[in-house]
């Protein structure tokens, strides 16, 4: 295993993906439809990341019921976030709900 080659190669492919739009920022003039599409990126990405964590239990079974502490805490967090639009308040409420539920 050539460690130097591995790390350099991984650096090149990850950094170029992150850098490309930033580096070309002044020259990029996205068409209107693409600007509109990009406005959905945060919702699309963050929702897709958390969905399996919320809905599957530790054994990987689909768990949509009240016995799923992560799901119940997530619903509470969502209600707080939707109402208050406050990130840290949401986190505190969600974590408090989760740890209370796991204690029960």
């Amino acid at each position, binding site marked *: 295993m050539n*460690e130097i080659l591995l790390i350099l*190669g991984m650096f090149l492919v990850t950094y170029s993906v992150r850098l490309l739009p930033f580096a070309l920022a002044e020259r990029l003039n996205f068409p209107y439809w693409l*600007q509109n599409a990009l406005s959905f990126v945060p919702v699309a990405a963050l929702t897709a990341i958390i969905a399996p*964590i919320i809905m599957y239990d530790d054994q990987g079974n689909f768990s949509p019921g009240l016995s799923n502490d992560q799901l119940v805490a997530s619903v509470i967090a969502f209600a707080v976030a939707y109402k208050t639009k406050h*990130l*840290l308040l949401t986190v505190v409420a969600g974590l408090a709900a989760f740890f209370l539920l796991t204690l029960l």
Partner: protein
Amino acid sequence: MRPRSSTEKQPSPHCPSSPAATIPALMFAGARDTLPLILAAIPFGILFGALAHAAGLSFIAGMAMSMIVFAGSSQFVAITLVMTAAPVLIIILATFFVNLRHLMYSAHLVSHVKHLPLPLRSIMAFWLTDETFAVVANRIHQLDSSHSVTHANLHWYYLGSALFMYSNWQLCTLLGFVLGERIPDPLDWGLDIAMVVAFIGVVAPLLKSFPMWLCAVTSFSTALLTSEWPYQSGLMFSMLMGIVVASLSSRKWTPASHKGTKT
């Protein structure tokens, strides 16, 4: 990020929404908002360090991967492939695909970094992660909602978040590598709930239109159906599905088609 007219984003030296905001205060705000995501990243950093050790990587290589590559999920895929003695080229290709979603993050942020000098943008790009993207997207939304006319100081907030993520990742890799299997399975600590609720805190306030809701519902359900796909391709696919379905439903193809409804 909705399209804005060019007169609205003239950089000005002060941020009207927080007139007293100094550089340390902005960096602190970025770090503070990232705290729950730091908590959730700790077990992964420690596990990565332990796995790097178990996979037979040298200490230098394990640390260098975290310091130079700095891409959590890609590093996990890479280390798993190292354990199966996969060829270097395959590992690099897998890394590329796992990290491809950052292209969309970077593209989303383009209009907010345009005014910054290229060296600064290059540094910011290196530190782009799911976590920093999430809190920065939230910050942009807050500035938009408070009718702030400029995001000129956004980069300090970004850097505060990114530096906190970066130093935490190095520290956890180090701990994991040195302590290795003496740490009981870090993923059982249940800390990923901190990331879940933080991401919910970012997403929920953005759900202000039918297309945004449709995007969330589509991404959510697609992610459940594709969570077993290899190399996180299910995640990328779910993102794209959400974006495409939401775009089609919003029917905003040209500025003229939605004239006057939004600024």
